[in-house]
C-alpha cells in the first residue's frame, strides 16, 4: 500500500532535525567555567560598569550562594552544574557596527537562516530590532526615530553607562536580587539584555523587538531586561527566541522587569522556540525565567507568550497590581512535545483597589511531554473590589502526555470576585477525518485545530508575530496526533 500513514509521518518528523539547529562559527571570547566573586567582578569589569553595579552583582552572588535550587515545580531534570558553566561569552569584534557591511557575514547568514535578516527587518515597517547574540548587542536599528521621541531602547550594558540614574532606580525594584535562586544567579552574572524607557505621555510608534539567541556551546545565557513606561506612556515589546541545536543542556535564566507608572501601558509578547532536545529527550535548553511587572495607578501590563521550545520551562510572568484600578493580563500558549516539560503560568498580585486581572492559558501536550499550568491569584486585604477571571484549557494529543493545572487562590478581601474555568479536550480522530474528507491533510488539520484552540491568545499577538507563532505551533506539533 503506497499510502502515507500517520506512523510514516511520525518517523519523518522525529528524524527531522531541529529547524534552527545550526551553529555559527564566530570567534568568541569566553570566560573559564565556574562561578565565584572574582568571576562576578570580572564580568562587571569587562563591561566597564560603575562600582554600584559591581556591588549590586556581588550582593546578589552572596545571596545566591546561600540559596538552594527550587524543587517544587512539576518538572524533572538533572540539575545543572553551576561550576561547569562559563558565565561570559562575547563576539570578539567589540566595536559597534555603523552599517550592515561591517557586520560579520557569518552572523548575517545566521540571521538569514532565522528568517530575520537585518535587511528584512529594517524594511519591515515599524519594527526596531535589538539583536542579542551571545550576550552582547551587535546591532541596534531604528534608534534615531526612537530618540526623536525621547525613547531609549538599547542594551542594558549601554544603559548602565549612559542612563545610570534610571537603571539604578529601577533594576531589582520588581524582581529583587534575592527573589529566587535563578533571579539571584541572573543578578550576579547577567551579561547583557535590553533596556527600554518610554518618557511621560509618549506612545511608542513601533513595536520594539528583540531576538535572542544562544550560540556558544556550554555558555549559559543570563539576559536582563528592564522596561520602564513612564506616566501615561505606551509600549509594545516583542521578544522572540531561537537557539541552535546542542547536545549538552544549556541553561537560560533570564530576568525581565517591567515598570508601568501611572496610566502607562506595557504589552510584552514572547515567542519562545529554543531547542527542546531530541526525540529521546536528550539535550535542549533549560529555561528558568523570572518575569514580573509592576503596575502603578491605572496602569496596565499584558503578558502574551507562545512557548514551544526548551526541554524544561519554569516561567511565571506576573503582575503586581499595586496601583488602584490597575490591570494585569496573561495570555499564554504552551506547547510541549516528545519529552518536553513545562511548568508555566502567572501570578496576579492584587494590592490596589478595583484592580482587575485576566488569565487565559492554553496548554497543548503531545508525545510524552508534561505540561503544567501553575497560577496564583492573590487578593490583598486592601484590594477592594478586585476581580480576576482565569481560564485554563488543555488539549491533549495521544495517550502518553500529561496536562496538569495547579491554580492557587489566596484571598484576603471579601469584596473580591474570582472566577476560574478549566477544560481538557483531546484532538479527535473524527475531527481529523472530517478535515481529511474536505481535502485537508492530517498535518494541516492538526495545525488548524490547534490554531483554533489557541485563537484567543494568538489574537493578542501583534500581527507579524502571530504569523510566526502560528508557524511555530505547526512545526512543534506536526505528526503528534495518535
Amino acid at each position: 500500500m503506497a499510502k502515507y500513514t500517520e506512523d510514516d509521518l511520525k518517523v519523518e518528523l522525529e528524524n527531522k532535525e531541529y529547524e534552527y539547529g545550526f551553529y555559527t562559527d564566530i570567534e568568541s571570547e569566553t570566560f573559564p567555567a565556574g562561578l565565584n566573586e572574582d568571576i562576578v567582578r570580572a564580568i562587571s569589569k569587562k563591561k566597564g560598569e560603575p562600582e554600584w553595579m559591581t556591588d549590586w552583582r556581588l550582593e546578589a552572588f552572596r545571596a545566591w550562594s546561600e540559596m538552594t535550587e527550587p524543587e517544587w515545580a512539576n518538572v524533572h531534570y538533572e540539575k545543572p552544574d553551576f561550576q561547569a558553566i562559563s558565565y561570559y561569552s562575547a563576539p570578539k569584534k567589540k566595536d559597534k557596527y555603523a552599517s550592515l557591511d561591517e557586520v560579520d557575514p557569518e552572523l548575517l547568514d545566521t540571521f538569514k537562516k532565522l528568517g530575520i535578516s537585518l535587511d528584512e527587518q529594517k524594511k519591515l515597517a515599524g519594527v526596531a530590532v535589538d539583536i542579542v547574540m551571545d550576550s552582547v548587542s551587535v546591532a541596534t536599528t531604528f534608534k534615531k526615530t526612537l530618540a526623536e521621541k525621547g525613547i531609549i531602547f538599547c542594551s542594558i550594558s549601554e544603559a548602565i553607562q549612559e542612563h545610570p540614574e534610571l537603571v539604578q532606580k529601577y533594576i531589582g525594584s520588581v524582581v529583587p536580587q534575592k527573589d529566587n535562586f535563578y533571579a539571584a544567579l541572573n543578578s550576579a552574572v547577567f551579561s547583557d539584555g535590553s533596556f527600554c524607557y518610554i518618557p511621560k505621555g509618549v506612545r511608542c510608534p513601533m513595536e520594539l523587538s528583540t531576538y535572542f539567541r544562544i550560540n556558544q556551546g556550554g555558555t549559559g545565557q543570563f539576559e536582563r531586561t528592564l522596561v520602564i513606561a513612564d506616566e501615561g506612556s505606551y509600549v509594545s515589546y516583542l521578544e522572540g527566541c531561537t537557539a541552535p541545536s546542542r547536545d549538552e543542556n544549556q541553561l537560560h535564566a533570564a530576568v525581565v522587569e517591567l515598570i508601568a507608572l501611572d496610566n502607562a501601558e506595557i504589552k510584552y509578547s514572547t515567542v519562545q522556540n529554543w531547542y527542546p532536545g531530541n526525540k529521546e529527550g536528550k539535550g535542549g535548553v533549560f529555561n528558568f525565567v523570572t518575569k514580573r511587572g509592576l503596575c502603578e495607578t491605572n496602569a496596565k501590563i499584558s503578558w502574551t507568550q507562545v512557548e514551544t521550545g526548551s526541554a524544561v520551562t519554569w516561567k511565571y510572568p506576573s503582575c503586581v497590581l499595586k496601583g488602584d484600578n490597575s490591570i494585569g493580563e496573561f495570555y499564554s500558549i504552551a506547547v510541549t512535545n516528545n519529552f518536553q516539560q513545562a511548568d508555566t503560568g502567572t501570578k496576579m498580585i492584587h494590592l490596589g483597589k478595583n484592580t482587575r486581572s485576566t488569565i487565559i492559558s492554553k496548554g497543548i501536550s503531545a508525545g510524552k511531554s508534561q505540561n503544567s499550568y501553575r497560577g496564583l491569584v492573590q487578593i490583598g486585604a486592601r484590594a477592594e473590589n478586585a476581580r480576576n477571571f482565569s481560564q485554563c484549557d488543555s488539549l491533549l494529543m495521544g495517550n502518553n502526555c500529561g496536562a496538569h493545572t495547579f491554580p492557587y487562590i489566596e484571598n484576603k478581601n471579601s469584596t473580591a470576585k474570582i472566577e476560574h474555568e478549566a477544560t481538557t479536550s483531546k484532538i479527535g480522530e473524527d475531527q481529523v477525518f472530517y478535515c481529511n474528507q474536505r481535502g485537508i491533510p492530517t498535518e494541516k488539520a492538526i495545525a488548524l485545530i490547534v490554531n483554533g484552540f489557541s485563537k484567543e491568545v494568538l489574537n493578542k499577538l501583534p500581527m507579524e508575530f502571530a504569523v510566526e507563532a502560528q508557524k511555530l505551533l505547526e512545526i512543534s506539533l506536526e505528526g503528534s496526533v495518535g
Partner: protein
Amino acid sequence: MLSIKNLHASVEDKDILKGINLEIKAGEVHAIMGPNGAGKSTLSSIIAGNENYEVSEGEILLDGEDISELAPEERAHKGVFLSFQYPVEIPGVSVTNFIKTAINEKRKANGEEEMPANEMLKKIREKSELLEMDRKFLSRSLNEGFSGGEKKRNEIFQMAMLEPKIAILDETDSGLDIDALRIVANGVNKLKNENNAVLVITHYQRLLDYIIPDFVHVLMDGKIVKSGGKELALELEEKGYDWIKSELN
C-alpha cells in the same frame, strides 16, 4: 463516474458490507435506502476513505481509477465529497477559514495556485446566499453551537464551495425541519449538473420528495437487495422494509 464492485468491508472483524455493486453515471442521482444497521453509513464512510473500516475485497473506481487505497484527502482532491450525518465541531476555526483552507489544499494538490481572496469572497457570498445563510454565520466557529439545520446547511455550503464530482449525502435530512430541508434540497438541486453525481443515503422517503432520484437502491444486511426507479422509494414508504424482507424469503 463512481463504480463500486463487489465491495466487502468489516469493522473489528464484523462484516458489514457483503458485496456491494453500484454504478453511478455523471448527471445521475442515486438514493440508497435501508433500515437501521444495514450498512448505509458504513458505505459512505468507506467511499470517503475512513480508515476505521477494513476493506477486504472489491474496488471503488472514480472515473475508472481505483481510489480504494487512497488517503481520504486524496479522494477529496479527486472530487469525492461526504456530507456527514454528524458534522464535528472545530472550536476557534471559522466556517470561512475552514472552507478557504479546504479549497486551497485541493488546489495545491491539483497543482493550482491558491484562490485569490476576492474570488474566494465572491464565491463564499454567492454560495452562502444560495443556502440562505446569514453572513454572521460564516465567522462562527465550525459547527460549534450550530443547530441541526445549521450543521446540514453548512455541509451543503461546503459542497457548493468545493464543487465535487460525486457528493454523498449521509442522512442529510435527519435533524432538519421542513424549511431547512427545502433550503438544503434546493441547494443540492441547483448544484447538480450533467458533470457531477449525487448519492443520497436516507432512512426516509421524505428527502426524496425534494431531491428526485433517478435510481433507488435498497440496502439490507450489507447487500443491495433491490433497485428501481423513484417509485421504489414510495413503495417502501408505504409498505415498509418488511415487505422487501418477505419478498426476499
